[in-house]
């Protein structure tokens, strides 16, 4: 099978790449593709996994840990979403780890959306029932929650900025909802 060299490499088509909305109080933008890992593991495996991933897996509910371009988001007592924006696949880092865990690549499952600006929290609160005040949801806080009628993972990246992660086919809904809400929140 000497044909290998002739196969053209498939081009990546991230959904809604470049789509954004700039409102008075909030700016919404689709983020560039990231590497993502759905990680499940018992407590006894956390040290080895943290070492392999280069980021200490948080154990406090609603918290995340970010190191350089990699974030680990606590989603449940044995569940993390690891996002890497530096081009390094955390799935590969886990492949060498022998301790008990489940690592599943979900880089293409999710779409990342940033929402920033002085009215970012109000915009999200149009459809997200969580208390997004800085005291209840400080920078670094994260949660698997809802926005309108869909599930999202929400991460506060700065006092006035959030990252929303949703499944690929729900991103149209999420973007439309946030745009609608940003118009009102302004």
């Amino acid at each position, binding site marked *: *099978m000497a*044909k*290998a060299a002739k*196969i*053209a*490499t*498939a*081009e*990546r*088509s*991230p*959904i809604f790449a470049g789509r954004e909305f700039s409102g008075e109080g909030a700016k919404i933008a689709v983020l560039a*593709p990231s590497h993502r890992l*759905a990680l*499940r593991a*018992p407590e006894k495996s956390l040290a080895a996994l943290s070492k392999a991933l280069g980021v200490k897996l948080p154990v406090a509910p609603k918290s995340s840990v970010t190191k350089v371009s990699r974030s680990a988001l606590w989603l449940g007592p*044995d569940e993390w979403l690891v996002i890497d924006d530096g081009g390094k696949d955390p799935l590969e880092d886990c492949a060498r780890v022998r301790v*008990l865990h*489940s*690592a*599943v*690549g*979900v*880089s*293409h*499952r*999710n779409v990342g959306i940033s929402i920033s600006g002085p009215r970012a929290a*109000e915009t999200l*609160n*149009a*459809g*997200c*029932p*969580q*208390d997004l*005040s800085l005291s*209840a949801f400080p920078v670094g806080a994260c949660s698997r929650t809802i926005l*309108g*009628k*869909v599930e999202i993972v929400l991460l506060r990246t700065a006092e006035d900025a959030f990252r929303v992660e949703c*499944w*690929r*086919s*729900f991103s*149209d*809904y999420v973007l*439309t*909802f946030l745009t*609608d*809400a940003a118009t*009102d929140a302004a």
Partner: protein
Amino acid sequence: MTESFRIAGRGRLASRTARFSFDGTSYFGMAGDTLASALLANGVHLVGRSFKYHRPRGILSAGAEEPNALVSVERDAARRTPNVRATVQELYDGLTANSQNRWPSLAFDVGEVNDMASPLFSAGFYYKTFMWPKAAWKNLYEPFIRSAAGLGVAPHLPDPDHYASRYAHCEVLVLGGGAAGIAAALAAAETGVRVIICDEQAELGGAMRYEAGAAIDGEDGWAWSQASVAKLAAMDNVTVLSRTTAFGYYAQNFVGLAERVTEHLADPKGLPRERLWQVRAKRVILATGAIERHMVFADNDRPGVMLASAARTYLNHYGVAVGRNVGVYTANDSAYAAALDLKKAGVEIAAIVDLRDNPAGPLVDEARSLGIDIHHGRGVVGVGGKLRVTSMTIQPKAGGAARTIPVDALLVSSGWTPSVHLFSQSRGKVVFDDATKRFLPGNYAQDCVSVGGCNGSDSLAATLDQAWAAGAKAAREAGGKAGPAAAKPKADSGENFVGGMLGAGPGAHADSTVKAFVDFQNDVTAKDIRLAVREGMRSIEHVKRFTTNGMATDQGKTSNMHGLAIAAETLGKDIPEVGLTTFRAPYTPVTFGTIVNHGRGPLFDPTRRTATHGWAQKHGAVFEDVGQWKRAWYFPRTGEDMHAAVNRECRTVRETAGLFDASTLGKIEVVGPDAAKFMELLYTNPWEKLEPGRCRYGIMLREDGFIYDDGVVGRLAPDRFHVTTTTGGAARVMNHMEDYLQTEFPQLDVWLTSISEQWAVIAVQGPNSRKIVEPLVEGIDLSDEAMPHMSVREGTICGVPTRLFRMSFTGDRGFEVNVPADYGQAVWEALWAEGQKHGACAYGTEAMHVLRAEKGYIIVGQDTDGTVTPNDAGLDWAIGKKKTDFVGIRGLTRPDLVAQGRKQLVGLKTKDSKTVLEEGAQIVANPRQAIPMTMIGHVTSSYWSENCGHSIALALLAGGRERMGETLYVPMPDGPIEVEVCSPVFFDEKGGRLNG
């Protein structure tokens, strides 16, 4: 027209005028007016016709409790809002309003005949009058009642406005912005906690709007209120929401607020019409005040008869006199204050009629000193005038000579009802206070507290004390740091609103036939309530439903207590024994727009599209909705209808190959050392011995033994399975598995991850499928020896990772190419280009359905319905015979599930090969039997099969496998269709094409 009833120097409105029209006549009002105050300023009292009797009606109140002054406000053809309370609608320049329930005009209404014919329309008349003859209900009575009933006309066009939503959290939520609410909010806000205070009016201030005698901290009550609200609004931790009604109090201090954002604006400027607030509060302070009740006497509904506090509001806040020669009818002191204010403003007070024998006190003394006639121990037993009150007839309570006094407005007050609606909605229990004859908050069910009028507090000083303490306590309990820094507000003077009476007054006694209205909006009289009791209603809940008292949109805010008192009196019982009806949300009507808010149009429900959606669109696909997904249904070429397209697609797949987007299938990665053990428990099939790299068709049961879902499962590694589910089952199968894992098998080391959207799935099916896939793949040997049917390999396709399945849902050789979703489009296009070399087509869900039915492959949810076992579906082979446990194993042994004669999956061939059966049609053995026939089965799938050259159908048929070759019938409107029972496999029975 000039505002002849506006009194210069009175009221608080700025002198900016606003033009509006009512029933086609133009008027001037002032900025800050309500429609009601503007109409009254122009001397207009007649504003509507009543619901049942079409009686002329005026303006009763100055607030949200208004049962009478319901009008239609029309911005344009699509924005025509019926049943707007004129007392709530704020005036804006250009406002257009019309009266309702009248024809041809408000002053001359043909429907008024109902008033004359009222003996026919007594309480419960529906249930009696329209009972006979029975058939007439459907054809005559109901259509007539439906067209006659209802108030106002809803617009026929879609609502062009938009609505918004906001979730909010706070430590202290204050419901009601009167003096009590403001004081509570101040106390709470001082501690630094988050406070939200809402009020239904345009400006907070509550009763300070009219209580001229109130003074707080050296200012008059209104000025103190506005200064305090400004102070609150300036604090970072406080949100002040005016024009915002708390309409519903739900579990765990979750309160629904409806904010009217643009209803008062001439130009909404793109803002949402209304905004729904859903607030979760650690503590709630109820400061909802009290509502004045009217007097129940003959013709008490005539325009010009009005609550005393309303007249006072129109005077003191809006600068409007409700008449020039005003009568007053009361049983307590508060109406005296109204009379005094009017008198001082130059309005003649014809007389105060007081039901009490010896009214006394400063207000009474002041009235006397101003020379106002007080007729004590007397009642108003009737009024003159029809479109507007012209006189009142008074009589001693004990009877005797009646006397008529001319008036052009009549102020009434029978006392105050604490607003316990929201408290009751919070599941708090009210208790009856016998001394003051009112229901007050008793046991609390949630973290809330009532202060002020709604808590039975009668004096301003007591109210402020109570509210301040409650605000400070709530804030402290909710985590507030310091105690309030500022000083508690102090009432310098206030007014006392105690006492009053309940029920019907003189002249409206038990034997009278007069129309003394209890519930204005639903036209319920004292007589109706008594009739309900005479007809056997004992509970107030029954009386309410029989008479409809309190069932209008005002929820009986002015009528409930009177109705209850009359029922109790008629029953000879005490009020608490008769009970109080339940308060339910919403407190006042809430638009559907507010409840739906953002969830309209594209946001009504998510629309999910796959990675190849754009390609399919470009290639002419017709889409069908499958749950939230848009799936390509078929790809018609020029000149093709659906049948021609589907026939071509089916033929092409079997002749050469076809491409199909299967991305919507649910996919779950099951990972962990106990993965196989878990699979053994969730599926009927055996998994332990399935080698990595191989696949198996799996069936999942519910506990009861019926098929729940199915799909092909590939084992990627000893500890890793790639599970597929049906498209519709994706979410619930994941939940089902997670549920069992967490509750039944928590000891297993295994985890589930949804990968449905990680992978785009491209099915390449047909004899040439390998030739299409092979040139693009690296690292995988696709030969039959290396990769037989039902196997899975990992490698690359077009240079990107793939999980490549060799499997078939068509019965022909086939592959399913899984690639990361962002590569789905590019890989599809590459496969398409290869496919073109072999004459392949793209096919949609319809062809997929036909092709699988030709092979007798079931679709869960179409050929099964939740009552089908694997055996029924002919899938016994998929049950691991040596297995001792899996979900549903015991269910399968239930007597019913192993009984003879169960419905089994069979094929049906029509005797006329061109006839296609209807899915869902019933099957009978003898079409000549009498109706209802004995039905022995039904058609589950039915298509024209181009490949077979005849129609095909799958059916569930009682004892089906014993009936092979039998002739049965499918009765249809045009006559029975003859069918022959056959195997469900219509095409390639031996299965050779899987490797063909």
